[in-house]
C-alpha cells in the first residue's frame, strides 16, 4: 500500500473505566465470593466512582476490580 497515512486516529478504551486484574474474570457460581466494597474517602468526596468489586476468577484466585482514575475523556 503506497498511500501515505496522513492521520491516525486512535481511541483507547480502558475496559470501561475499570482496570481489570485478570486471570479469567469470574468463577462459576461466585455467590459468596462476589463482594462490592466502597472506599468511604472517595464516597464522601463525591469525586468519582467509589464502588469496587472483589471476586474470584476461573482458577479460584482473588481478583480486584477498581475504577480507573487515570482514564479521562479529552
Amino acid at each position, binding site marked *: 500500500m503506497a498511500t501515505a497515512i496522513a492521520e*491516525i486516529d486512535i481511541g483507547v478504551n*480502558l475496559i470501561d473505566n475499570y482496570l481489570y486484574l485478570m486471570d479469567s474474570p469470574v468463577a462459576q457460581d461466585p455467590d459468596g465470593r462476589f463482594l462490592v466494597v466502597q472506599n468511604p474517602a472517595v464516597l464522601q468526596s463525591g469525586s468519582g466512582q467509589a464502588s469496587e468489586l472483589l471476586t474470584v476468577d476461573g482458577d479460584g*484466585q482473588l481478583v480486584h476490580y477498581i475504577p480507573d482514575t487515570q482514564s479521562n475523556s479529552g
Partner: protein
Amino acid sequence: MVPDCTPPDYGQRDSATSSTIIRLAGYYDQGGILNLLAYFPTSQGDEPSCATWMQRATDGTWSNATAILSNNVKNALACTYQTDVYVDGNGRGYFYGVSALIGDGGFFIATYDAGADKIDLIYSYDLDDFPPSPGLSEQAAFRMAAGSGGNDVTILWVDMPQGSSNTEIYFQGATITLGHLNTTFAWSNGKTLDPQVLKPGLGVFGVSDLIALPGNYGADAIILRDAAEVLYFVSGYNTASPAITPLTGGAEQPAGAVAATVGQDSNGVLTVFAIETGTTNLWYLQQQQAGGSFGTWVNLAGTLTTIASPATMAFGPELFAVDLSCDIYHQARTLADQVWVTRKVAEPAPSSPDNDQPQNIAGYNMEITALDDTGAPIPQAIVYVAADHPATIVVNCLSYHADTNTLVPVETDPNGQATVTYQAVDLKPPLFTMSSNADGSGVTRWCQSDVVQTDNPPPTPPATSVSAQLTGATTETLTSNGLIDPSYSDPSQAVQAINAAGPWMNPNAAAAGAVDTSRTTVPHWSLDFTAPEGPRFRILSDAEAEVMRENALGSSGLLGDACHFFKNAWHELQSFSASLVGDVLTVMLNGEKWTIQTLKQAGDALETVFTRIMQGLKDLHQLLKDVLDWLKMLFEWSDILNTHNVLREATNSMDRDIAMVFQNYALYPHMSVFENMAYGLRISGRPKADIAERVRAAARMLQPEDYLDRRPRQLSGGQRQRVAMGRAIVRKPAVFLSDEPLSNLDAKLRVQMRLEIKGLQHALGVTALYVTHDQVEAMTLADRMAVMNDGRAEQVGAPLEVYARPATMFVAGFIGSPPMNFLAPSDLTGAAAPALLAALPPGTAAIGIRPEHLEPVPADRAVLSGNARYTEALGAETLIHLARPEGETLTVRIAGIPEGIAPDARLHLAAAPATIRAFDREGRAIVAA
C-alpha cells in the same frame, strides 16, 4: 465435630484440598485500607473453612495480615460456617458469623482497630448458651443490621427449634462502645423481643435469605426471602408488632428471586435488585421516596447468575452482575436522567501465572483509523504501535509479547480500522505511540476516549450555561469563571472572539457594552466543554481549527457520511438521533457519538452541512432513486418468494448451486456491474483472481465488457438484464431459474435477448427453468414446457407436442397466437358439416381449430361461413377476423396477402378433420380410440 483446622495452621491453605477461595468478606475502613477475609476449604470440605486476612494499603499494595492476629481472634475467624461484614453508618466495619472454634460452635463479632492495627474480638458466645435464646442449632443464621430506638445495632438470627416445623426469627438490639483496644458489645436487655414467628409457612431461611439494609438506613427494617423465593420487607422489627409486606408492585413482577441485593442512593431511597427465578432476568424495585412504600418492579432483562450492589449508591441505583457467559458487568442508572449505563468490566481472557496475590494486569482496547490526505480511510494500511513498558499486544488474534517500545505492525481492515488489545502489567495504562513507518517516524497522533455501552446515552450539558457565563462578559469575569485559559497571554482576545460570534452567543454583549465590538479579529477559537474543570477558551491556529472542524464534522462531512451509509450500508443503519442541549450538538449514528464541542464549530458545522445539502441535492435525488430501486427489487423478491415456493427454497440454498435471474434484474444499485457480477462469487469465498477471470469471461459472452465499471442506473434495460444473467452465469450453477427475465424489455430487445438466451443456454449446457407468460418465448426456448393453470400443470411436453395436441381447452387457448378458435358442434352449419360432425368422437362438446387450419373454400365444401369483420395484413401472413352470431370472432390465418376479400365479404371455411380437436364438457381433449 471440630474440623481439622487448628490455629497453627491458620492462614495456611490446606494443601490437601483445593486452594479455591470459597467466601469473601471485607470493607474499606475510614483510613482507606481495604480489609479482606478470604476463606479457603479445609480437609473436611468447604464448610467450615480457614481464613486469610489481607489488607490493601492506600498505595495499592497488598499484604497478608494474618500473622498479627491474636490467637483468640484467629480461633474466631478461622473455621467458620458463616462470616459476613456489617458496615455501620460511620463506615466502621464488623466481621461476624458462626465459628466452629468457639465452644461447640459460637457466634462472634470482631472489628478492626486501625490505631492498634489489629482485629479486636468484641463478642463471642457458644450457641448452646447464647444469652438471648439459648440452645440454638449450628444452622442458626445471623445478620447484623442498623439499630434503632437507642440501639447501635440489631442482631437478627433465624433458627428452627427442635421439634418445630417453623423457623423462628429473633431480633435483639445491642450497643457498641468504641474504644482503643477495648471496644465493647452489650445486649440491650430492655429492648429484647420475644422470639416470634413472623408469618407462618415462610419455610426455612438460610443466611442468604436475610438481606440486611445499608448500615446508615436509619430504620429497623430488613428484607427476607422465604422458601418460595418471595421477598418480604420487614419493618419495625424492634417494635412489638413488626410489619411484614411482600415486595410486590406493578402489573408485572418477578416470579421469585433466586438472589437479591439492596442499596440506598444519596436521596435515601432503597433499590432492591433481584434475579428472577427461572428466567434469570434482572428486576429492580425502588421506594417511591426515602422511607416510603415501594413502587413497581421493572424488568431489565439479561441472563444473570450473580449480582451484588454497593450499600451506598451515590450516583443512583448501581450493581455488579455476572451473566451466563461469565462476563462481569457494572450497571448503574443516573439519578438525574434515569438512564441505565452498562459497562463490561471484564470478559474471559487467557489465564496468567498462578499467584496468591492479585495479578496486576490491566487490559485496554484501542481503536485505530488510518486516513489519507483527503480524509478517506486507508484499507490494509500498516500502523505500528508500541507501549512504554512490556505488554502483550493482541492484533488480529495474534499475540505479541512486546518489550518496551517494540513496534508491532497493525493492518487496518477494508474500512481503514483496526482493533488492538493491550494487556500490560502494573496498574497504569501504557503510553501508546503510533507511527506510519517501521522506523517509528511519520505522523503520529493519539487521543483517549472512554466508550461505554449506554441504553440511552444522555447528552452532557455543561455544568453552567455558557450563555449565562457569557452574559455581560468581560475579561475579568471570563477569567474568574474559568472560561479563559490562564496561560493564554492575551485574555482580551477571548472577549473579542466571543463578541465576533455575534448576538447568538452573547445576546447581552452589545447592550451591556462589555466588549469592544470593533475588534473582531480572532478567526478561530474553541470552547472545550470536556475539560474536567469546566469550559475553557483557547485561540486556535488555522491548522488546529481545520483539524478540529474536521474532527467535529467527520473528515468526509456529515452529509457525505450519511450518503455513504445510505448508499453502501443502509441496511446497517440501526439508529440515528441528534440533540442540541445547551450549546452542545450531539449526533448519534449507530451508537457512535459525534459531538460538536464548540460554538464556533457548531456554526461552521451548520453552515457546512447546509452548503453540502445544497450541493448534494443531486446526490440525494439519486439516493432516493437508489432506495426506490431497492424497494422495487424487494417487492420483486417478495412476489417471487410468495408465488413460487420452489424459488424460495432455491434462494435459501446457496449450496444447492442454483442461480436466479429476475424480471426486475435485482441488481445492487450501489455496486458496479463488475461488483454485481462478482458478488455471488465473493460471498462464497472464491479467490480474487478466479472471480475476475469468471466475470470477464461472462462479460465477453454477454457483451457488458464495456461497462463493467458503471452502476446499474447507467445501463439500459437490456444491459441490466445482461448483467443479471452474467451474475448468474459466473457462478457456473447446476440450474438456472429465470422468472420472466425479458418482460421488462421492449419487443425488439425481447426477441434479441430471447435468441441470446437460447444460444447461451445451449452453449453452457446448463439446465434452466424459465417462467414466462410469453408463449413465443416458451415455444422457442423450451425443450419441455409445463403449462400452469391455477397452480397445477395442465400439460407437460415438448412445445410442438403441446401446440399440436393440447390436453385441455385452457392449454389450447393459451398456447398459440392468435389462439385456437373454439366452436360448438352446432356452429358447423355449412354444406360439408354433416360429414365432419359424423366423424367427431362421442361426447364432443366443443371443437377447436387453429386459425391456420381454416381455409377459404367454395360454399358447397364449407363447414361454416361468416362475414369478414376486419383484416390484419402482416406481410408474410394475413389474419382475417370473422364476426360470429354471438358477437365473438373467428380468426383465420392465411399466408401472404389474399386478394378479393373486401370488408364484410362472406367467407366460407373448411378444415381438415385431422386438424380439429374435440373437447368434452369439462374442457378435456377427447382422444380418438
